[in-house]
């Protein structure tokens, strides 16, 4: 089976039962993606597939052949942090760090969802094309990622700061 992980094509032969999470961690040594509950309830295993966030623990690896899979390892490195990784450090977006890779992958995709106008359960007017980036919106959209350390305030601040920064840069580029 062929997988495309962090822009590398990888051949791996795994049992049908193997989850994408176990493929990453146990077969490919990509242990940045974490196993929390292994049942879809915590978000620690969040990765991006073709830019969309999913829980890799509930995904059978066989279903994700030839798709673009992005994990925390592909998002940034210690020498070249993704802006959200830098913001998580600046705003204390973690304590133990176990949920952090999932939080960051989830947030990257979530920002994309807001930008393309996907409403949330809290969005008042479903007809709006532009969705506000309020704290409540972020909390609702990030509810699939639990943090046992309760670093939520820092997580929200880091996301908001990164998004504000990106928006400012875009406005500048447009002007």
């Amino acid at each position, binding site marked *: 089976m062929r997988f495309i992980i962090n822009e590398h094509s990888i051949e791996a032969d795994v049992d049908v*039962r193997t989850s994408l999470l176990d493929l990453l961690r146990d077969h490919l040594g990509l242990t940045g993606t974490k196993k929390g509950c292994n049942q879809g309830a915590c978000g620690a295993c*969040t990765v991006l597939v073709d830019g969309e966030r999913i829980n890799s623990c509930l995904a059978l690896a066989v*279903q994700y052949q030839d798709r673009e899979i992005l994990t925390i390892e592909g998002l940034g490195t210690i020498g070249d942090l993704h802006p959200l990784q830098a913001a998580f450090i600046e705003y204390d977006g973690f304590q133990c760090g176990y949920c952090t890779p999932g939080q960051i992958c989830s947030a990257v995709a979530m920002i994309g969802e807001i930008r393309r106008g*996907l409403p949330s359960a809290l969005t008042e007017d479903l007809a709006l094309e532009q969705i506000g980036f309020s704290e409540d919106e972020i909390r609702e959209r990030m509810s699939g990622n639990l943090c046992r350390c309760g670093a939520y305030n820092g997580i929200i601040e880091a996301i908001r700061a990164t998004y504000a920064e990106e928006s400012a840069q875009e406005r500048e580029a447009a002007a």
Partner: protein
Amino acid sequence: MIELRYEKAVDPASAMQLHGGRGTARYLGGGTNLVDLMREEIEQPGLVVDVTGLSGDIRETDGGGLLIGAGVKNTALAEHRAVRARYPLLSRAILSGASGQIRNMATVGGNILQRTRCYYFYDDAARCNKRSPESGCDAIDGFNRIHAVLGTSPACVATHPSDMCVALVALDAVVHLQGASGARAIPLTDLHRLPDGHPEIETVLEPGELITAIEIPNLPFAARSTYRKVRDRASYAFALVSVAAALDVEHGIVRDARIGLGGVATKPWRARAAERAVVGKAATEANFRAAAEAELENASPLSGNGFKIELAKRTIVHTLGELA
């Protein structure tokens, strides 16, 4: 462990052929329910037939409704412009379920056929008629705070957990099926069975029968509709009670109403008694309350879930009030 094979279907015909109606075969959507149940060994298939390649289209029907392929992802359905404008209760129901990650994986077909979250169903040390017919039901005298008050039987009191289906039954959705004996279309309200004496038989589907699409008829007044979900935490939890409703009010009189209930019943619940009670009446809180009373008149509480009856009534009143 049983050997597990994987096949990917390219269209309904190949899906059915690969499945072959075998009791050990399962269709596989996003896997968010089936993979979990396989890990718990509640489901032990020998073959999974991936149907995520089935139609992922949403298109207009001649009658002004929508035809939604079974392979459409939950996120895509909630996000669709026509759904947001014409059937907001459906967008809202989907968006209030699960998490962003799970909605990206879950398909329409899989959401409809997801299985109950009854704890005893998941716990193979417990007795459960649904998992193991005729073994008894540990929920009836156990922790049953999350269980149903409508449509229950002495054999099973488990709820159907879907939010999406609650909106769909309110909208008179029709399920398109493809089976060994051909294609058929049935109302979604007829797809799920009440548990009666056989909670292990959850739907009227024939062995190997495939959901190919779901159709929502044209319903202009559904543009004024919403979904309200009450749960133990603000997000990412199953409903204790939920209400999907659309209301057609003119000059203060309810001309038509559609109401679905979630979290309280053994199948996605169409609240026809409430609808009958409110249509033709003034859109007042007292009349909404009377409609809610009518629907829950025959509700049967268990030791731990009696609160759901009053909660459902208040949620109905509040939701209709919001639309009036």
